[in-house]
């Protein structure tokens, strides 16, 4: 537990000092939102129906970018070597990395939601949306941490991470979009509940699988 917290703290401290992950990813996410807005401009009337999709597509693209950052930063400075030499279980490294990616992505989402809300004139500050966002981000981080570590030693890694990541997280993306739509249509919790359950099941399955397989990916 101490080791887990110190990995997390290390990552957070590094981020606070350098701001090399959250800031660029946030700018990128905002740009994606704006580009979608331009692309949809001719059909203003459609925006309410497509807004959840636009939101989650932007978060997914930004997320994959952020995930690849977390490990490249480690590798550039030899941090991964240090982590692997440390007398801690691989699951702990996984959970530490998983949690820090989760927090970074959530920070980006927290910043992007108000902007999104303003640009599209939609009420996104609904508790269902937030629960859905937290669960979806957990799922992204659980799968993404394994694949990011994998693509680290792979040729053409900039393309390999999204190619591996996107098909696997399709259920999470779908659930997030549907859950957000249900909330925007003014449905109560029951509308979003089955999507929340689905995402939660995904999170549990892939966090366990990730913790089990991460050591095998990391081993030299």
């Amino acid at each position, binding site marked *: 537990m101490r080791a887990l917290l110190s990995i997390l703290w290390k990552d957070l401290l590094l981020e606070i000092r350098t701001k090399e992950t959250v800031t660029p990813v946030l700018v990128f996410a905002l740009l994606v939102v704006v580009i979608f807005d331009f692309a949809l401009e001719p059909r203003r009337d459609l925006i309410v129906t497509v807004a959840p999709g636009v939101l989650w597509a932007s978060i997914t693209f930004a997320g994959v970018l952020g995930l690849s950052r977390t490990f490249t930063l480690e590798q550039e400075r030899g941090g991964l070597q240090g982590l692997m030499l440390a007398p801690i279980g691989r699951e702990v490294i996984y959970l530490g990395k998983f949690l820090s990616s989760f927090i970074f992505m959530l920070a980006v989402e927290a910043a992007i939601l108000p902007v999104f809300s303003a640009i599209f004139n939609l009420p996104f500050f609904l508790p269902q949306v937030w629960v859905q966002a937290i669960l979806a981000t957990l799922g992204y981080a659980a*799968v993404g941490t*394994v694949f990011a570590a*994998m693509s680290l*030693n*792979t*040729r*053409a*890694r900039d393309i*390999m991470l999204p*190619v*591996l990541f*996107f*098909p*696997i997280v*399709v*259920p999470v993306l*779908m*659930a997030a979009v*549907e859950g957000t739509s249900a909330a925007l249509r003014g449905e109560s919790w029951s509308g979003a509940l*089955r*999507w929340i359950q*689905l995402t939660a*099941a*995904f999170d549990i*399955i*892939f966090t366990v*699988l990730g913790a089990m*397989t991460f050591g*095998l*990916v990391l*081993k*030299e």
Partner: protein
Amino acid sequence: MLSYLIVLGGALMVANLFLSLVWSPPDVNLTEGVRIFYFHAPVAWVSFLAFFIVFVASILYLTRKEQRWDLLANASAEIGVLFATLMLISGSLFARIAWNVWWTWDPRLTTALILWFIYVGYLMLRAYAPQGAQGARYAAVLGIIGFVDVPIVYFSVRLRTLHPRPIGTGGAEADTFNLASPEMVITLVLSVLTFTLLFAALLWLRYRMKEVEEATERIRRDYA
């Protein structure tokens, strides 16, 4: 052994062609179009079987660390992608006849497409990952994660399409068909059997070839 398999498979294939193209009767709604099904269904079944083998071989490789499981997973994934590609093409043609559209986002079709993407990614990872044991472990991890993901994808698309789906907009009533006659059932069963046998032969060939590839590579490493 392998040559017997090939002879038996060849004979079955000829019999199967006759049954599915000539002997079995046309469907009430789909008429001759139903014959696509005798190709589409077995090909789909074989691709799922192939990816299941990838899944099992990946687990065995990670627990036992024996290279043969890695070779088996690799060979099976390759043939699986071939069959999955055929599944998508024949399914698209079948959909055009039965539902009037080339493609519809119903649970089975969407799952099949995602499945295809996952295993094309698997082959790409095979090509770009580091050589040797590390790359093999990467592929095995993806082989497990990918297969576990498939039922979740299916379930999530089904959850989304609980409301009626907008297909057959052209007014085709040929939406469903049932295997009305015993000839149809026999043909389908034989087709599945034949294609499974074809898959077994291909997998065996490819696996043995991979063994030889691996052996020559090892010799080159050791002596060169």
